[in-house]
């Protein structure tokens, strides 16, 4: 267990540093309160309207389909690179994989998931 001692020390120092910095900051800094200071911190432009708006469900379906077919291409790249080593076995394997995905594609297509309207 002694091998983990540096990690524990590291955690203590990291946590302690944060606490110390916050306390020192609170004591040293001048206390001037303005309206802007109390606003929620956000990057970029202040948002124009409600940010918990309802989004069209289609976005999610498209995103999900994208993930599936993106993974397909992700698999295809290393397969293509190492094709000379895995040979016929790899080819059959990949054909099976794509055939299964084609079934899914056909299903999504027939259910109208690819149409926007």
């Amino acid at each position: 267990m002694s091998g983990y001692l540096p990690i524990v020390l590291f955690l203590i120092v990291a946590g302690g540093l944060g606490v110390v910095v916050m306390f020192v900051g609170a004591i040293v800094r001048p206390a001037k309160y303005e309206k802007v200071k109390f606003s929620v911190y956000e990057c970029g432009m202040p948002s124009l309207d409600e940010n918990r708006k309802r989004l069209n469900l289609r976005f999610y379906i498209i995103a999900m389909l994208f993930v599936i077919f993106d993974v397909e291409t992700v698999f295809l790249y290393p397969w293509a690179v190492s094709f000379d080593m895995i040979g016929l076995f790899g080819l059959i394997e990949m054909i099976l994989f794509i055939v299964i995905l084609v079934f899914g594609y056909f299903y999504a297509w027939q259910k109208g998931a690819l149409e926007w309207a």
Partner: protein
Amino acid sequence: MQNFMMNLQSIFPEVLMTIFGLILVVLDVMTKKEKKSMVGYFGIAFLLITALLTNPQVGGKYLGFNNMLMWDNFSYVFFVIFALAYTLTTLGSVEYLKDKGILKGEFYTIMFFSILGMMFMVSAFDLTIFYVGLETMAIAMYVLAGFNKNEMRSSEAGVKYFIIGAFSSAMLLFGMTYVYGATGTLNYLQISEVLKSGLVADNMTVKIGLILMLTGFAFKISAVPFHMWAPDVYQGAPTPAAGFMTVAPKAAAFAALIRFVYIALEPAAGLWVPLFSILAVLTMTYGNLVALAQTNVKRMLAYSAISHAGYMMIGLVAMNPEGYRAIALYSLIYVFMNIGAFTLLGILKNKGMVEDERLESFAGLAKKNPLYALGMLIFMFSLAGIPPLAGFIGKFQIFMAAMKADMIWLAVIGALNSALACYYYMRVTIYMYFNEPEYEVEATVGRSAFITSFIGVVMVLFVGFFPTAFINFVRHLLV
């Protein structure tokens, strides 16, 4: 080449099921909107073909892919149990789904794919394969629980099941990493080898890993105190789906647990046998005690499902061949009586005032629908374990296994619990036969629901009156 054939034989049932599942997906988009039940019927036919083609002859063992997958009689028996659960649920669900306006092909396709996951769980000899199978099954179950999206409760059940399921899967996976870290292998046989060298006694990592894994398993089989999700999920899910969920995934989890615990953890019996004995007692007693207080029959059956998991755990801790045979037999009997009861429950409708499944809805049904009442009576008596019916045979075998393992105290607690359980099962029949109806209830049994409950009743009676034939059948299959 020899090796390749062996690999192919070990995975052949799963390959067949995948092909059939993909065909079901295509069939689903080809059929017309009002004929979606065809998908389910095709699913039944496909399961029948798979069952006929993949029967390993007695004693046949196909171990493949570096001892990762095993197709033998044990896997086959549990596959038959899942297939029967699918068949009965499909037949029993058609009218219910049509009535609720959710008759979609996906219901049957997803259920079909969940069986694929269960097959992987049961035939796994390696933790990775087991985990993949578990997730395939679990994700399908989340969808089935939330299938009726028009209803708040069903959606709630789906989300709840998903969150708890993901949590328990994470726990299981976390435990697996510890076990892998300590033993250096994921294969059941090799884990057993490593544990035999006395690693369990003095290695904290293995202990933590195993405890986390067993906790994950306990969540999956809804053992008390890891049962909190079960009543809400079973109550919220569409009734036929709830019937399926109380039977098939639980049988699959038990089968996978038997494989893991009997093979990999056999040297570590001192660790898990006491743990599961305590869990078994808690599960039986808690499930029965809370079921006593329920006024909603669906929720009552959900709690009764928890207590039945407790009975099955007795067979697990008995740790002898009788134990796992008894679990297989119990699961098989449980398929008929529980899916039958849930199918009949799904038929019941009152004119939109209160929940359909209230206990008061059953009042006076014996006069109005004598056949319905008789079917429900037989299922309730069987679930309670009244002697000439199938439920009794299942419980008897379980308690016998416990006696054989010198765990008489567990058998006694189990018997006391089934006496306790009689009360709430009887209450339903008392309402049906002796109470006057308070409001109007409709219970017209449709054609396919009739077939399901008929098969259920016939099997419950058959197993009850000719138990030896049935027990020999299971024993013959399990060797």
